[in-house]
């Protein structure tokens, strides 16, 4: 099955198929075979440092994990169930309070069972990232219906 990537359809999956993505307000900007770009608008409720409002590392992890999964779909052009095996994040710079965070994730190798992903998080300049990440994912991890299925159902109900 081949899928044309329609950004509004991907945004619909984020908003209706992934409750936590909807909760934090994830946005998709790009999706093609080279990877995906997601963003997270700055929100004070995700600050980890109460003194200066710098975002908690965990919310950067969530942003990267979400984009990492989606870039595998972009690569294989099929919505199959995925499970994260591991994810390593290096925090290179603190996020600047008040600024949105972007992430670019790329699936650089996929085998029959495993996908390998790298990602960076940044504000405006991908050459000056906030975080660098690598992760591996297991493909066809469950026999549940694909991600876009439940989004379609929920989207249709509204």
């Amino acid at each position: 099955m081949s899928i044309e990537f329609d950004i509004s359809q991907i945004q619909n999956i984020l908003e209706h198929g992934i409750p936590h993505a909807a909760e934090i307000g994830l946005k998709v900007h790009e999706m093609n075979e080279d990877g995906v770009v997601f963003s997270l608008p700055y929100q004070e409720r995700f600050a980890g440092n109460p003194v200066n409002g710098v975002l908690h590392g965990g919310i950067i992890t969530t942003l990267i994990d979400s984009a990492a999964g989606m870039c595998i779909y972009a690569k294989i052009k099929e919505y199959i169930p995925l499970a994260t095996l591991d994810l390593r994040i290096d925090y290179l710079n603190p996020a600047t309070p008040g600024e949105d965070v972007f992430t670019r994730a790329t699936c650089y190798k996929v085998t029959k069972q495993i996908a390998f992903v790298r990602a960076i998080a940044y504000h405006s300049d991908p050459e000056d990232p906030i975080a660098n990440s690598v992760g591996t994912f297991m493909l066809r991890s469950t026999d549940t219906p694909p991600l876009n299925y439940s989004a379609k159902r929920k989207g249709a109900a509204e």
Partner: protein
Amino acid sequence: MSEMTPEDFVKMINSAKETMDWKPVFDIIPYYSFLGLQLAPWGGGLTCVLPENKKFIGNPTLPALHGGVVGAFLESTALVHLLATQEVTRLPKIINITVEYLRSGKPVETYAEAVVTKPGRRVANLRIEAWQQDRKKPIASAHANFLVS
């Protein structure tokens, strides 16, 4: 943000250490409030609890917790453990974390504990494990480095 200074925050952490009441610290860290992070009354007082909440779901068909939330919970647990067990003169900064996802996390109450594997003068290394109903079946583990001075 709040009008809090770094000194006020360190003071608050040290007072939590004395009283063993971490609620004021958790309440003032916005992301901890978002997670609803708590300490379990058992397990020596440093078992963190992530309450059940639909907003943490990443896969509604399984259903399963979002991997990012699990990672964030492990990182938060590590920091709480550092604050509670090490001498803190400033808020430790995370350098990196590697999360291993062992089982899919159900959207139920989740627990985590950390141990300091190396309490360095500049860098502390921790191991963190999260589980749900069965302590012997962890859903995720992680190791992380924090800059402590």
